[in-house]
């Protein structure tokens, strides 16, 4: 059987069954968009982890003038207390856990703050006095944060020990929940897509029963009988997958690249490159689902 002939049959099928084909396109489009969104969110988490886990430190904030914490009852941290903390960080008990540490004064804190919130009006109203001084500690193993916390929490002159990772974990868990929701919706939509492809192929086989009846009589092989229908489902799913990829690309381009990435300069964001990694898998998923679902349908409704 010649390719041109098969493609002609596919064209006839698509034209005659247009409204069903359009609905297959839309349902695959939406379901694959959700799948892609979930995948991109997971990639965003990975991206942020890689970027932040190196940079994130444990911050040991020292007492300022007006801290309420129980360690700070005597007012701001004294020179002696600061030296004590610094030598503790260098002691043999702590040293194995610490990669390096660094003192950050109020003035340095202000400089960092202003850098980070460059575009926001906040950076102009904040003064160095409002920001705490701190020790920034990088850990050899970030998971061992608890040890540092225990050691320093009750030390005089320490206001609070903060693991910056905790903040990130909160963000990650929100993204995670969002991506699970997306996966859930995607699952339901994919089920719809599979059932709809089946129904569409069935309707298409019904609409073309005259042709297939004749094809069967003149000795068309099983594959040449079924191929036009399978291709029909696959083409519809392919269009849906391409649409989904396009929409994801546009979303990342205009919402992430041109908005989020500019507003939050020192956060790593996924970019359109990640969409290009996800898109082929979406297309493959769409094609495989449509192919399998139409073959299964045809086994029942289009016998040789």
């Amino acid at each position, binding site marked *: 059987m010649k390719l041109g002939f098969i493609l002609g049959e596919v064209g006839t099928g698509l034209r005659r069954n247009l409204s069903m084909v359009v609905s297959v396109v839309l349902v695959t489009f939406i379901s694959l968009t959700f799948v892609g969104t979930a995948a991109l969110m997971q990639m965003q988490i990975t991206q942020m982890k890689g970027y932040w886990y190196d940079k994130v430190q444990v911050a040991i904030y020292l007492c300022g003038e007006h801290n309420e914490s129980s360690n700070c009852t005597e007012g701001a941290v004294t020179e002696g207390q600061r030296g004590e903390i610094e030598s503790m960080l260098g002691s043999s008990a702590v040293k194995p856990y610490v990669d390096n540490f660094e003192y950050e004064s109020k003035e340095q804190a202000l400089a960092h703050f202003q850098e980070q919130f460059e575009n926001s009006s906040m950076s102009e109203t904040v003064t160095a006095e409002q920001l705490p001084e701190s020790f920034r500690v990088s850990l050899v193993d970030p998971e061992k944060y608890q040890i540092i916390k225990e050691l320093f929490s009750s030390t005089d002159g320490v206001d609070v020990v903060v693991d910056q990772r905790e903040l990130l974990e909160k963000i990650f868990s929100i993204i995670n929940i969002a991506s699970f929701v997306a996966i859930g919706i995607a699952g339901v939509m994919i089920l719809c897509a599979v059932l709809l492809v089946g129904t569409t192929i069935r309707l298409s086989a019904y609409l073309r029963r005259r042709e297939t009846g*004749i094809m069967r009589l*003149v*000795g068309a092989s099983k594959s040449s009988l079924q191929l036009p229908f399978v291709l029909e489902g696959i083409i519809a799913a392919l269009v849906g997958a391409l649409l989904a990829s396009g929409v994801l690309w546009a979303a990342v381009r205009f919402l992430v690249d041109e908005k989020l990435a500019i507003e939050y300069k020192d956060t790593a964001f996924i970019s359109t490159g990640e969409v290009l990694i996800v898109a082929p898998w979406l297309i493959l998923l769409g094609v495989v689902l449509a192919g399998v679902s139409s073959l299964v349908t045809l086994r029942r409704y289009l016998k040789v």
Partner: protein
Amino acid sequence: MIRFENVTMVYDQKSRLGSENARPGLDDVTIEIDRGDFAFLVGASGSGKSTFLRLILREIVATGGSVHVAGQNVARIPSWRVPKLRRGIGVVFQDFRLLPQKNVFENVAFAMQVVGESRSAIRDHVPQVLKLVGLEGKEKRQPDELSGGEQQRVAIARAIANKPQILLADEPTGNLDPATSVGIMNVLDRINQNGTTVLMATHDDGIVNSMRRRVVELSLGKIMRDEVAGEYTSMIPVINQDGTRELRQANHGTWQKPPAGSQAFAPFDTEDDMP
């Protein structure tokens, strides 16, 4: 070419209606049709003619006995080889079954495209076939621009486009007037003279009587008679199911053509009273 050995076809075998309800579509039929034969299959409605033809095509599989086509037991052919069997058999129906949106040429070409013939082979062969069935110059017509007889010629052309050894026709003249039917029969006769085995189920007594070819009569799924040059009905005692006998009157058509060989053979003698 085609051999039936004790073939029984019981539809709805699985239904639990009970065996007294399930009358077989064919009942213990044994017959052989040789290469190059031209045979009529006659009998009342529901006597099993279409069932007989569908068994040859392996659209259905016999529930008992075996059907052999071109030396193969069709029940034993694996399903992926069935298309190959069907490429050797052309089929024509009462309702033509043309594709309405394709023109005459495309309808015939369709059969060749389906089996993967090259474009040049199709371009060469289709006009020849159309010429054989008498449709020269009508390649570009749509089916709805043709008379019934012409549509049936297109259907015949399509059936023989892949040069099958067997041509099955299920009441091909059923929708046509007598004169048009004669034309169709001439086409089938010509195809048969080219060596194709033709098996035709029909109710058209005029045609059967005038052609004087082999006649196989079915009744309630059984073969009632098998004559080499028979008529639609014969002056023979018919034994009814309840055991009574009656004499059936031969009913002759108006079409006149000298019988090719009107010698009658077993199982029954017929009275040759063609005018």
